């Protein structure tokens, strides 16, 4: 892996980044659900569904967001991972044929109190369908290395 471009200092509150978009097919929805979330509303089997018809597992939406995060910026960053997730919401179902657009907004940045070489960045991630509905929001902190002293940058 080459030298990353994004360090802690490269994030500032208010920054936004488009993380791309991806279409979700019924085959995608059913394949994921059969493996990880085999509720009838996600696998398409007969069953009562409050939301009516096939919908993607919220965990599937979260995984698609994670992939978009990796491809969109984490792979080119000095990321040290995330200790967890503060909150995920799934306000609207994702349907077959939906195109999901993903983005982040930086909510805050703060240096680590205990580790001078690390900083925390708090993100709000939003996943939106082509109808403008919010399919998922996620708030969490990720840890990033600080640029080494004497980088000259």
């Amino acid at each position, binding site marked *: *892996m080459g030298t990353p471009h994004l360090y802690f200092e490269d994030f500032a509150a208010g920054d936004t980044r488009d993380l791309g978009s991806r279409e979700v097919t019924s085959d995608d929805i059913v394949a994921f659900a059969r493996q990880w*979330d085999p509720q009838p*509303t996600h696998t398409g089997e007969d069953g009562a569904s409050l939301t009516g018809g096939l919908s993607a597992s919220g*965990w599937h939406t979260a995984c698609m967001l994670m*992939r978009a995060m*990796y491809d969109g910026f984490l792979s080119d960053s000095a990321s040290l991972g995330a200790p*967890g*997730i503060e909150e995920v919401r*799934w306000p609207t179902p994702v349907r077959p044929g939906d195109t999901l657009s993903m983005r982040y907004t930086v909510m805050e940045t703060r240096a680590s109190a205990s580790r001078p070489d690390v900083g925390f960045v708090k993100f709000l991630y939003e996943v939106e369908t082509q109808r403008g509905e919010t399919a998922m929001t996620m708030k969490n902190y990720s840890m990033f290395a600080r640029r080494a002293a004497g980088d000259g940058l």
Partner: protein
Amino acid sequence: MTFFEDYAEGDSHEIGTHVFEADEIVAFASAWDPHPFHVDADEARKSLFGGLCASGWHTACAWMRLNVAFQRRLLADARAAADTSPATGPSPGFTDLVWKQPVYAGERLTFRNTVCSKRRLASCPGWGLVTLRAEGFKDDGTLAFAFDGKMMVECREGA
């Protein structure tokens, strides 16, 4: 059982175990979270984790699969005991997820659900929201993973 009224704070159930085999770790992460330490054993050894470990989302998905099977068993018990069983609704989300320890290839997690709280939903008459603490423990008892999940559950008594 398992209508909104049947849930009590403190109810706790072991819902099952999952062994995170190397090939499954790599397959999951290749699709969803392809950090080198999740997809390549050599890269993982050189990384801060020191060995191939599962994506945190893989851990969460393993819980979800076990949870669906567990909820199905509860519903089957309910149907055997009564002529009605409750519907469940889509989860509105979750909070306070922590990935406390890496889960390495070959390790097993034992998952547990504990009811934290419940409340009727003013916005959705006849339904309540149950919050449960999901936890995944390593064989030595160390907590590796946890979060507060939210489930919509039908009320027996209606609106």
